[in-house]
């Protein structure tokens, strides 16, 4: 028919119109028409084939976090769609803008338990910001436009669009796409002036203020404004795992990360403060195990774009809903430095008193590897991590100075995230070195993506902290379960160098501390992907450690024995 287009043509055109340059995906029966169109438009939109849909979802997430753009992933119906679930839940917990397109069985077959049918619309409701099951082909363009708008604005998040395959082949007359009309969706941007005034007064009165800032600063692109605010007011700052890089970690006013495995000085400073200025954070239980013993003497200011985060875990004296960038700009105009010599001296003393350390004993300590990598690269690389002990050591020892340079599954804690996220980050930042810090447990959860880095010759550096066990759970078993290491010590592990060789990827194994620097240097100077298998101390523990539900200075090992 003349003047008509297929649904698939409209989908791909809509992606291109939304500014999408690359999608991550895996084909299947109910997305053949869509893949047919991707084949024909290969010059206009790049498709990266992963080896598992979970890899595609994490890669889209990594791409989004590294670039600040919306990441896109594609999967077929049924198992393809359900394989995206972990990736979408990960993105949802960390507020990452991702659009997922899934194929669905024909419209008239929905509900019949058809081959490869799953109710991904129903399944994804609690793990997406919004989702669609499109029933008419002429709505596709409008839905896709809306989906990108929802994913990227306000508090960002993943959006899923389920598209039956008969819609992809339908011939329709394309309609003009109108503006996005969502009557109930209007994220607040500016902060209320009265609250701004209240904040300024509180800042003036505070004797022991601390800034507690997180991932919201990245989502709002407010790092510059934050830095100005800190330097103007001279208030010390601690950042969350999600906030790594929003403020240079080598700055004298930075206290490192707070919370369960945060620095002692950050947690002590929070505990002693009389004013906590929370920005783009959610008082997560890994940050504030017991909200009543978090900052018992403090008043709280909470700045966030999501009104539902304010007052969710603790009562806040001065709430302000809005975009951090705008609010910080308003605060910067009027805030003045206040001399707080005693507090500044106290902070310096806390830092002096409780530095992060580890003990060398002839084995390779993961902390040492990360510190060495950090010193050698000086904030210039993009780091992704998996989940567990190595993640916490990375948070402690990897000095990050810019936003979007440290990506980790903070909220959901998804083992298997790091490697595919590194693939996405490398696609998004082709000129930057991307290093995935992973464990032998986590790496095996998405190890199939070695084929992806090989196929596209992506120069991702994979550093495995190989302790032969699931270290974080083992640590808890050691501390709280009488060392009954139930299924946390691997009786068998593959030879990661041989695995890499099977994928035609260069690999090296490091067993002595003296060879660590050399190995890192070699990996960083290798073109193409490299696997480095660091055989590390098997029973090393992440310290400091505040066990779940305890007060902010209730460190493990002090009064526990």
């Amino acid at each position, binding site marked *: 028919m003349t003047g008509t287009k297929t649904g698939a043509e409209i989908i791909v055109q809509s992606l291109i119109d939304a500014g999408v340059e690359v999608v991550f995906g895996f084909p299947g029966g109910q997305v053949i028409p869509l893949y047919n169109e991707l084949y024909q438009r290969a010059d206009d939109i790049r498709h990266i084939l992963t080896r598992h849909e979970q890899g595609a979802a994490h890669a889209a997430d990594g791409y989004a976090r590294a670039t600040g753009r919306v990441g896109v992933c594609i999967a077929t119906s049924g198992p393809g769609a359900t394989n995206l679930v972990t990736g979408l839940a990960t993105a949802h917990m960390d507020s990452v803008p991702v659009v997922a397109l899934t194929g669905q069985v024909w419209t008239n077959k929905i509900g019949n338990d058809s081959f490869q049918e799953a109710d991904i619309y129903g399944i994804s409701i609690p793990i997406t910001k919004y989702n669609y099951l499109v029933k008419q082909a002429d709505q596709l363009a409008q839905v896709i436009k809306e989906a990108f708008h*929802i994913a990227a604005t306000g508090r960002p998040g993943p959006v899923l669009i389920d598209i039956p395959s008969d819609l992809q082949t339908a011939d329709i007359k394309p309609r003009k796409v109108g503006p996005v009309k969502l009557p*109930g969706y209007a994220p607040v941007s500016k902060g209320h002036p009265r609250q701004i005034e209240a904040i300024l007064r509180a800042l003036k009165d505070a004797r022991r203020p601390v800034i507690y800032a997180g991932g919201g600063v990245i989502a709002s692109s407010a790092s510059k404004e934050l830095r100005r605010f800190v330097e103007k007011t001279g208030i010390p700052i601690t950042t969350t795992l999600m906030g790594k890089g929003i403020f240079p970690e080598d700055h004298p006013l930075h206290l490192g990360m707070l919370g369960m495995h945060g620095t002692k000085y950050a947690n002590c400073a929070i505990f002693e403060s009389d004013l906590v200025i929370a920005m783009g954070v959610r008082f997560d239980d890994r940050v504030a195990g017991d909200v009543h013993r978090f900052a018992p003497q403090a008043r709280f200011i909470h700045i966030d774009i999501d009104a539902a985060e304010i*007052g969710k875990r603790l009562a806040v004296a001065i709430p302000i809903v809005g975009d951090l960038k705008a609010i910080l700009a308003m605060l910067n105009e009027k805030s003045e430095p206040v001399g707080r010599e005693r507090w500044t001296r106290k902070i310096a003393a806390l830092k002096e008193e409780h530095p992060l350390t580890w003990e060398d004993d002839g084995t390779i300590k993961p902390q040492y590897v990360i510190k060495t990598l950090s010193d050698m690269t000086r904030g210039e690389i993009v780091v992704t991590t998996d989940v567990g002990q190595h993640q916490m050591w990375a948070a402690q020892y990897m000095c990050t100075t810019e936003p979007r340079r440290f990506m980790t599954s903070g909220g959901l804690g998804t083992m298997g995230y790091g490697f595919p996220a590194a693939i996405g980050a490398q696609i998004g930042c082709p000129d930057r070195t991307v290093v995935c810090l992973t464990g032998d447990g986590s790496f095996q959860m998405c190890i199939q993506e070695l084929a992806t880095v090989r196929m596209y010759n992506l120069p991702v550096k994979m550093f495995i902290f190989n302790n032969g066990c699931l270290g974080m759970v083992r640590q808890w078993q050691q501390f709280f379960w009488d060392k009954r290491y139930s299924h946390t010590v691997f009786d068998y592990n593959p030879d990661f160098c041989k695995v890499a060789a099977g994928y035609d990827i260069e690999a090296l194994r490091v067993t002595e501390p003296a060879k660590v620097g050399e190995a890192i240097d070699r990996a960083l100077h290798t073109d193409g992907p490299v696997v480095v298998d660091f055989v590390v101390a098997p029973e090393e523990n992440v310290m400091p450690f505040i066990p779940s539900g305890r007060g902010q200075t209730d460190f493990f090992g002090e009064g526990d024995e």
Partner: protein
Amino acid sequence: MRKMISILVRNHPGVLSHVAGLFTRRAYNIESIAAGVTENPDVTRITIVVSGDEIILEQVTKQLRKLIDIIKVQDLKYSESITRELVLMTIYAPKEKRHEIIRIANTFGATVVDVGAKTMTLEFVGNDRKINTVILSLEAFKIKELARTGLVALPLESEMESDRTLL
């Protein structure tokens, strides 16, 4: 504590799943939920009665506001709203007790809508307190089956000069 929330949502398939899903995911307790299209066919009104402590009840409103399909969320106070619910109940009614049942029904303004060989079915419309009173009064006769629509509510327009006894 209990709270009544009236929400306006975009009328399309799936919107109820989003609302109900929020309550499951966040472990909120729904006491009743009633949905129906409004004067505008594109808009559905859902009236929800939810229980929890003060912090939870505030969270419920905030989390509902976050749903993309929600157009408006309104916390309704019982004292400033008109609330109604419909209940149907089938009661075991042997011949000798029918008079008594009808007498109670008349007292409350309930209507007999069906009479079976051994049962009578009554219909009653009122606010939830009155409904509970009616049910309590008829429980002695043994209720065979009972169906409630869930509370619907609108803000009271005549709030200022209100004759509260009307409620």
